[in-house]
């Protein structure tokens, strides 16, 4: 209160009107039946409360501004991303149907952890790496099988003289 300048006057109704510097609206204090000392004490109390409330409002507004800034900064640094759609399609195509959903969920969980740890770019790269590691052996197996079938067909055609 020592740093706040204020001025008290009695209005026509007998109420004490307190004008605090920097505050557009006057504060009214009921001073009836109070000695000058008690009235001063009450005025100081009202001014202090008013000042504390104003400070609280200002702090809250400042905190909201900082929070907004931080949120926009975080979003700019690590935008919400999802795993590459083509990679997900490949996994669901080549994995066992029964476990396809849970496997995709697991891959998403690992992807989200990687986004937090390394950022979206590297997380996507790691996701693709995992897909290649997963799909590669299955494709190789398929190609081997196709090769074996081709040999069988060729053998059959030779035997039949086609």
């Amino acid at each position: 209160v020592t740093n706040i300048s204020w001025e008290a006057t009695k209005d026509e109704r007998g109420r004490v009107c307190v004008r605090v510097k920097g505050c557009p609206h006057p504060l009214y204090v009921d001073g009836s039946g109070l000695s000058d000392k008690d009235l001063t004490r009450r005025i100081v109390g009202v001014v202090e409360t008013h000042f504390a409330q104003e400070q609280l409002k200002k702090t809250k507004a400042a905190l909201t501004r900082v929070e907004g800034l931080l949120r926009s900064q975080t979003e700019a640094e690590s935008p919400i991303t999802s795993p590459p759609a083509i990679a997900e399609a490949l996994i669901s195509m080549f994995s066992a149907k029964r476990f396809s959903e849970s496997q995709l969920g697991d891959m998403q969980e690992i992807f989200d952890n990687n986004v937090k740890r390394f950022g979206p770019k590297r997380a996507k790269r790691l996701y693709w790496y995992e897909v290649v590691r997963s799909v590669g052996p299955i494709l190789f197996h398929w190609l081997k099988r196709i090769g074996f079938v081709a040999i069988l067909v060729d053998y059959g055609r030779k035997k039949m003289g086609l």
Partner: protein
Amino acid sequence: MDTTLKQTEQVVMLAIMRKHPDAYGVSIFEELAKRLDNEVAMATIYATLEKLEKKGFVKSRQGAATAERGGRAKMFFEITGKGQAALNASFKALDRLRSGTKLAGAMA
């Protein structure tokens, strides 16, 4: 029905036992990466789990779907009694084979 266990099947079963009752894809994947110092592909883990389930060594149950996983449910795995017996038998067979052999650099 094939009751033998390959090494991948053994390690996946051991990881399930270690992570019980929270053994699902990610926890098995992380356990294997941590204990084996080698990342096993998720597809390999699921292919192995599928084989083990067909053999009756592992049983699965579906958990609740969560938003963090894109609304996809977890699949939890558990070793069956038959699975434990098979794992035990495979380790005993390995022990029988190992006994009397001396490996250079082995601790015991």
